[in-house]
């Protein structure tokens, strides 16, 4: 009796906890409501099965508990019942899989009109790159990376020059515009995830990965790294600000392009070498090298 009651309590307790739990989805802020729907559907189908099985066990434990002189039934198999159960389970599984695959098809199909931008991950910070006026991101390679060129862009690629570089963990995105997140890591695996967007993908060094999402709610959201990337993994954070397109444009305007940052760097470098020259040649000669 006690055991049967405990089993019932486990089933009921689980359901009660499910409905009363204060821990639930963080309110969504993207187009991926369909992902939440698949999860909800799965909760319903599997929840019913779970409760049914545990209650059935409780019933058996109570009804068929040991009694002196009682004998268990001897029925090695029951083909009909077994096929029925197999059939029903198959139907349930198809009911889960079909919507799952349907939504996955949307997940892997990036809309034509999506605007691309790049997320760059490295231990343990985020940075971002937007295509400039030409709308195309320039090529990049780890071999190009230096203090002056932290993104590793190809300086000879004309497409790189107007790329907008954001060396900061905060990025802005326009509201209601599908965005294709191109993901690039320069060291180890990372994973770009904004829980309110529901969509994520790993960053893998040596390749560019992607996913897409349309932000549907204005606000400031946390970006978390979701793939273990070393001791600083839990500190690898960023923020995404979703705002009206005009505000987004204004923000983007203020960010430096690759060409600008290179010029700055070059000027900086010239300043440095001038300093060195001064040291080597002395004040007087240094004065004559100045144009």
């Amino acid at each position, binding site marked *: 009796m006690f055991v049967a009651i405990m089993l019932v309590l486990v089933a009921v307790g689980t359901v009660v906890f499910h409905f009363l739990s204060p821990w639930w989805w963080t309110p969504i802020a993207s187009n991926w409501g369909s992902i939440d729907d698949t999860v909800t559907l799965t909760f319903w189908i599997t929840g019913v099965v779970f409760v049914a099985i545990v209650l059935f066990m409780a019933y058996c434990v109570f009804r068929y508990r040991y009694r002196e002189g009682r004998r268990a039934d001897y029925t090695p198999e029951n083909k009909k019942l077994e096929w029925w159960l197999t059939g029903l389970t198959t139907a349930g599984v198809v009911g889960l899989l079909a919507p799952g695959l349907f939504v996955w098809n949307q997940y892997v199909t990036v809309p034509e009109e999506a605007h691309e931008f790049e997320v760059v991950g490295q231990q343990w910070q985020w940075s971002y790159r937007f295509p400039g006026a030409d709308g195309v991101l320039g090529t990049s390679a780890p071999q190009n990376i230096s203090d002056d060129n932290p993104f590793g862009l190809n300086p000879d690629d004309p497409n790189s020059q107007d790329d907008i570089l954001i060396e900061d963990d905060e990025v802005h995105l326009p509201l209601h515009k599908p965005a294709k997140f191109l993901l690039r890591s320069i060291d180890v695996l990372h994973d770009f995830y904004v829980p309110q967007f529901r969509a994520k993908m790993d960053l893998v060094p040596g390749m560019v990965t992607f996913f897409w999402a349309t932000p549907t709610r204005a606000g400031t959201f946390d970006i978390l790294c979701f793939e273990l990337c070393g*001791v600083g993994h839990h500190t690898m954070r960023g923020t995404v600000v979703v705002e009206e397109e005009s505000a987004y444009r204004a923000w983007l305007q203020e960010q430096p392009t690759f060409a600008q940052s290179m010029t700055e760097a070059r000027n900086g470098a010239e300043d440095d070498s001038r300093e060195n020259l001064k040291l080597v040649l002395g004040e007087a000669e240094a004065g004559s090298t100045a144009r």
Partner: protein
Amino acid sequence: MAYVTHDDAQSVPLAEVGEMELYHAKSWVTKYVFSQDAKVIAIQYSVTAIAIGMLGLVLSWLIRLQLGFPEVFDFITPADYYQFITMHGMIMVIYLLTALFLGGFGNYLIPLMVGARDMVFPYVNMLSYWIYLVAVLVLVASWFVPGGPTGAGWTLYPPQAILSGTPGAEGGILLMLISLALFIIGFTMGGLNYVVTVLQARTRGMTLMRMPLTIWGIFVATCLALLAFPALFVGAVMMTFDSLLGSSFFMPAIVEFGELLDYEGGSPVFFQHMFWFFGHPEVYIVALPAFGMVSDLLSVHARKNIFGYRMMVWAIVVIGGLSFIVWAHHMYVSGMNPYFGFFFATTTLIIAVPTAIKVYNWTLTLWQGNIHLTIPMLFALAFIVTFVNGGITGLFLGNVTADVPLSDTMFVVAHFHMVMGVAPLLVVFGAIYHWYPLMTGRMLDETMGQFHFWVTFLGAYAVFLPIHYLGLLGVPRRYFELTDISFIPDSVQTLSAFVTVVALIVGFAQLVFIYNLIVSRTKGEPAGRNPWRATTLEWQTAEVPPGHGNFGETLPVVYRWAYAFSVPGARDDFIPQNLPPDQVPTDGSVS
């Protein structure tokens, strides 16, 4: 109907099995230390596995202390934390569960249950254990090298695993890889033994379709392990090369903290494929023996034949086969070709069907039974509850779309603990309560058993159930702390503290169990022969505990399946597998 397994009128022609030459130990050392007797090897494996498992348990406490009370235990640094979770995960999955199920239960039960005198290659079997022990020692040694053990996560994903941003990149990761390679070598020696013994050394009349499901589970799990471990072995060797010799199997061009490394062209995703080609079958390497053993516990203690035996056997075989084509469901967001998602989601959900059938058949075994609520039965019931719970969350994670927001969250942690941590361990406990009387001749203490059961079952459920909901909220796994995350309310910390307290209680309940194991060895109630009135051969030996060679002068002959419980017309509610049909006492009624 020639193959109907449960029909004992149909005596299968008895194949002759030659008597095997037994190795007879000449000294104490060869009898108990370098023993070639599978039963002694089984105990050695089990004791070692449980000992290292205790370390895994202590590590889980440290992890939980950090998560539950982040500010309080400031001797735990982030590096420590990542080392703890890595070693905890690896120890639990490989060095505890795999070793205990196959090396422990496999060695003890296979020869006894199929009616063999020992494993077919006893010497190799002995080596298997000693290599396993060395593997464990190498693993533990990683705490004593500069940099400590690896903190790469139990999945050991490169490039991170061998780069300096991860703790243990100096020596820990190499010792981990070496230890795994040793484990696999040792396991292969044992595994070949288990498979060949099941295939070649069954006694007369023990057809495959008369074998207890315990043996089916262990047998198929061993086949999986023999096929899956090589992938991990090769991956480990390749990663060792990348780390030591500068090869680039898994390493693309990388700039690490501003410095260009000397690697080029390798693929980190390639390692993930190799890891999970092993890693997914690994789940079933742990689960299938548990499936088999729990079937037998349910049947014996409900006094009823297992429902749908043939379906159960085929389900084990089909699950084993399918488990090799679902691995990339761990990689939906890994950056592999996203179209693979369609294939792997489909195969993964197909596996749910045979798995569900097993669950139905377990519950239908209870139906119309005569259920003794013994400790093994309680654990078996708890297994069904936790396994169903953990299994259904697998349908979320397997169904590609639903996995996207949930992957790498606490939902995953809750899922795999429920399904491959809690559920199989409950079977381990049930099995120990069930077979301890055979191994020692004494019963385990019932009161301590009740206490152990209720605290473990309800506690573990209370620990892992709420953690799913943290995952839903978006709480990441493998996070040292959750400071400054705007969507995480304070209540999460309260819940974490609660979970930690319960986990500690559950942990300490295991000490009661260990205590029970030790005292009952000498103080337990004498079990006598066959205390559970079971049908299988291990309970029909000449002496209890079974001596060297298992069976007396002659090997038993098997006349029927292992589930002849409550057969109408028979006097007793069980008929041992080796009782000749003409000697079965009848109840007097005409049958």
